[in-house]
């Protein structure tokens, strides 16, 4: 087997294990209040981290003002209660137009 296929199978196995660990080990035991409070905040924390790293890239090498403008368009349209897909389309349109004309 080539190194590429070995890597693919290993990454698949590692991903499976990571995703299985929490549910298999914790089961449905009720969590202490403090742990539950932390867990409730994991979603906003990780989402903020994903958005920032997606935008910045490794060592901020991929930061791009046209992407920032597109993200602003998505946020503004969403705050005006547009459907999610419309917001994403607004972001794509804003970024593409700025790249084409500015």
């Amino acid at each position: 087997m080539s190194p590429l296929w070995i890597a693919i199978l290993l990454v698949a196995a590692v991903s499976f294990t990571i995703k299985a660990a929490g549910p298999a080990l914790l089961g449905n035991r009720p969590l202490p209040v403090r742990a539950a409070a932390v867990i409730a905040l994991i979603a906003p924390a990780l989402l903020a981290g994903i958005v920032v790293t997606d935008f910045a890239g490794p060592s901020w090498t991929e930061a791009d003002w046209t992407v920032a403008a597109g993200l602003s368009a998505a946020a503004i349209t969403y705050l005006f209660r547009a459907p999610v897909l419309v917001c994403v389309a607004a972001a794509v349109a804003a970024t593409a137009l700025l790249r084409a004309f500015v």
Partner: protein
Amino acid sequence: MATTESGYAAGLRVGLGLGVPTFVMAVTFGAMTHSLGWGILAPVACSLLVFSGSAQFAMATAFAGGGGVGLAVGAAAMINARFLPMGIAVAGDLKGGRLRRALEGQAVVDASWAAAHKGNGRYDREKMFSATLVQLPAWVLGTLLGALTAPSDEIIHRFGLDVVFPAFFLVLLIDEIRVSARARLVAGLAAALAAGLVLVVPVGLAIIGSGAAALLGLRTAKAVTAK
């Protein structure tokens, strides 16, 4: 996502919405790996078996950078380590014994997991399942299309398609922080942590590091119940 809609049908709707950006990302992955000499079968198998965009991109990047199997697997594992806290968060809302829960936990992918969040750490299991099931074919078929047609980075850049994923996650984030001041505080801290960490550590580690902001919940758990 703090919506009132729940269950399989709601997940299907979310999944169809997610299908578009997922498909676009997958095309990018297929194109990138094809240009790295992976051929057609390996990218598609990778998408089917791993089913995690960020981990697959990390793995491909590590390989392209001359890293061996160890580095590629290590990079993907670091990126995917975020599924550990995500899995812990949903654990209480899954069903069955250990094995069944371990299998149900495989439905955790970023967007489905975030969309299934009902608030206060509770998750809509059915919504997460159907949202994930819709994304899988979009991910695999997109990879196949990318590997077959190999569109250039330049095309993706020109049409602004690289903004699709962050825009999607931003909208999910807005849903989370709309409902509570504490979530806004945590998200702000997490963003600052990620912005700083990404300067010194790989992206995957920076995301995990930003998750540490959730520990603010320890301090404010007893005091804050209102907005």
